[in-house]
């Protein structure tokens, strides 16, 4: 089978599931689930086949989709090392999440809708990844937004879920405006948006620097929206209202990864403008720090993970913005693995505890769920950057790249690593080592087997994935050296120090029992500040309440006060004029006749004069 066919399968199979669901297969949920699993399997297979059979120099194919004289949009696949690697991540994670969901959603009456939409999610994400045309990317990008909207709001009877879904959609849409504007700006210089065309144009360096910067910033806006960077990140923690498998998929391989992937894809464009690159780097460092501090004080398990995702996404962007595609992308891959693991484990915990509150989980479940605990430990160790584990390997590369960009960024990144270690171990300690643990009865269920199986598989994967850096770099077309860790460098040493400091503080705060409030609580003002997410959420709420609502009120005021009043005023004026005319309509035929003849005479005179 050709690469094109595999790509067709990767995109088409899940889409078919979605349409089947939409067009009435909802009535047979089990069939949908089966079909969905089958398609996920096909997708995973296809992505791996593409990656393994990728010819030297990549593969491109496209057919015209929407053609106009000014520009055209094509539908096609552009398979490169980057895209196939990403596709593998998406395909694999998607498969695992689907399998996990079989157990997780076993009792939900709407599971057909769930699996259908999940498939749409995969289609959309793969659409982004495999796309040969930025317009197609944009379309898929929007579809990802739609699918995430539907999934986050899956339990839409819950007002919080509906609200979160709306928030996610609107905030990412804010970013998409930038993306759209950037694309539109590009189209004003190019005939089409094929990625090759764009990259060639960037390479040719024919655009004036200001224009490149403008495009870069616009695109960055879109990336910030999708990948939850400051200031468009607040939707992500709220998105935890969705079912856990969704969170897992959303955070690891799809949606948020899309932004990072786009950055990686168009890296030359961003790097072409020094300002854009530096700005992106600065933004990433700032976001990473912000998110990490919030994660340190957050008490809901999934929200901790969400903030951690934001922070880790910033790390990826740091790597990319610093110029290292391998570093940034490798971190994406490893993060996909361990974050997925963490979420799925969290899902098990929450399933058992019926709550997401960390302290409650520690008290109610703790170590009595061994598989979940295993997942949590492996995931957190990887997250914290423990040497030899996945997180460490990729993060080290990122730090290395950032180091070259200046000490300010590097120190910020380093501080973030320390905080990462702190909140990762805080999570472990709070969840597993609660001295006041209650006794719990286990809930053995057949459905749980699916989930536990997936967690175990992922844990194994996470353990191994850190060592694939060299292969990945080669697959991306770089030398394996780029993924090589210089164990004996000062960078590793600094990282180790950060890890030890962070983990140590976590152990001091939470490892030994006690009040379990943490060091941050000792500075209440700072704690409050962090807990409120640095006030960004409040800012957006104010923006929405004052800015948008104000504009709305203004528009309404104009509409009702000015325009409608003018219009109705015209009506009233007509009425008055009508009253005047009615006076003339006094029932005297003679008057009418005189008027008519007067007009006629005037007309005749005018005609005579002509």
């Amino acid at each position, binding site marked *: 089978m050709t690469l094109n066919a595999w790509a067709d399968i990767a995109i088409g199979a899940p889409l078919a599931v979605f349409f089947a669901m939409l067009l009435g297969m909802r009535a047979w949920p089990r069939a949908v689930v089966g079909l969905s699993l089958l398609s996920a399997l096909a997708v995973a297979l296809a992505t791996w086949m593409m990656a393994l059979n990728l010819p030297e120099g990549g593969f491109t194919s496209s057919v015209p989709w929407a053609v106009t004289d000014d520009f055209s949009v094509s539908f096609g696949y552009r398979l490169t090392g980057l895209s196939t690697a990403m596709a593998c991540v998406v395909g694999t994670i998607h498969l695992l999440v689907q399998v996990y969901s079989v157990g997780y959603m076993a009792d939900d009456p709407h599971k057909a809708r769930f699996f259908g939409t999940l498939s749409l999610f995969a289609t959309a994400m793969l659409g982004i990844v495999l796309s040969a045309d930025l317009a197609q990317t944009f379309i898929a990008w929007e579809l990802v937004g739609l699918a995430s909207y539907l999934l986050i709001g899956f339990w839409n009877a819950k007002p919080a879920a509906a609200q979160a879904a709306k928030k996610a959609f609107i905030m990412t849409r804010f970013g998409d405006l930038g993306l759209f504007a950037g694309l539109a700006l590009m189209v004003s210089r190019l005939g089409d948006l094929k990625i090759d065309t764009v990259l060639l144009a960037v390479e040719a360096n024919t655009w004036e620097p200001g224009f490149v910067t403008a495009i870069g910033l616009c695109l960055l806006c879109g990336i910030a929206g999708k990948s939850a960077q400051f200031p468009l990140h607040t939707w992500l923690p709220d998105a935890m209202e969705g079912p856990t498998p969704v969170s897992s998929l959303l955070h690891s391989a799809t949606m948020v990864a899309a932004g990072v992937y786009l950055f990686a894809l168009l890296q030359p464009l961003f790097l072409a403008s020094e300002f854009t690159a530096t700005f992106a780097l600065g933004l990433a460092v700032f976001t990473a720090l912000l998110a990490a501090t919030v994660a340190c004080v957050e008490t809901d398990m999934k929200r901790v993970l969400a903030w951690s995702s934001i922070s880790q996404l910033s790390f990826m962007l740091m790597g990319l913005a610093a110029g290292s595609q391998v570093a940034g992308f490798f971190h994406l891959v490893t993060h996909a693995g361990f974050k997925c693991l963490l979420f799925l484990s969290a899902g098990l915990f929450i399933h058992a505890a019926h709550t997401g509150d960390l302290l409650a989980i520690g008290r109610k479940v703790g170590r009595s769920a061994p598989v979940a605990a295993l997942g949590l430990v492996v995931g957190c160790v990887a997250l914290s950057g423990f040497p030899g584990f996945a997180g460490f390997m990729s993060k080290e590369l990122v730090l290395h790249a950032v180091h070259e960009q200046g000490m300010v960024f590097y120190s910020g990144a380093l501080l973030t690593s320390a905080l990462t270690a702190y909140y990762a171990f805080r999570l472990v300690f709070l969840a597993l080592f609660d001295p006041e643990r209650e006794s719990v009865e286990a809930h053995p269920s057949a459905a749980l087997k699916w989930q536990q199986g997936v967690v175990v598989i992922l844990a194994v994967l996470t353990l191994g994935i850190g060592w694939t850096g060299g292969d990945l770099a080669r697959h991306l077309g770089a030398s394996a050296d780029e993924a090589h860790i210089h164990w004996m460098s000062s960078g590793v040493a600094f990282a180790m120090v950060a890890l030890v400091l962070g983990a140590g503080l976590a152990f001091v705060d939470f490892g030994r029992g006690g009040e379990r409030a943490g060091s941050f609580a000792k500075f209440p003002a700072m704690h409050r500040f962090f807990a409120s997410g640095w006030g960004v959420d409040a800012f957006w709420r104010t923006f929405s309440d004052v800015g948008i609502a104000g504009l709305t009120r203004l528009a309404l005021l104009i509409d009702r006060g000015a325009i409608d009043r003018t219009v109705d005023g015209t009506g009233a004026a007509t009425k008055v004029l009508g*009253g005047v005319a*009615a006076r003339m*309509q006094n*029932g*005297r035929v003679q008057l009418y*006749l005189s008027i008519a003849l007067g007009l006629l005479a005037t007309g005749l005179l005018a005609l005579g004069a002509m």
Partner: protein
Amino acid sequence: MADDLNTYLIISCALFAIGLFGVLLRRNLVAMLIGVELMLNAVIINLVAFAKFSAPEPVTGQVFALFVIGIAAAEAAVGLSIVLAVHKSRGSISVDDLQELAG
């Protein structure tokens, strides 16, 4: 004089003027109707005159004059029936008493 078109047109205009004057002056419905009929007759003179002097086919003007006569008859029929109806309902046929539509 008798073979000059303008003579007849002026006759017609003058007759029209008298009719118009009548319509405007009088308040009696029948008298107003008479004025209207005079105006119609002015038109007939016009048509017949043009038929003689300038129409390519004289018969056309005459035919139109006949149509005008026919319409005048119809108008008179309806007008007079209205006069009778008005008289029956208000006992007067002066337009001064018929101003309910005045605004």
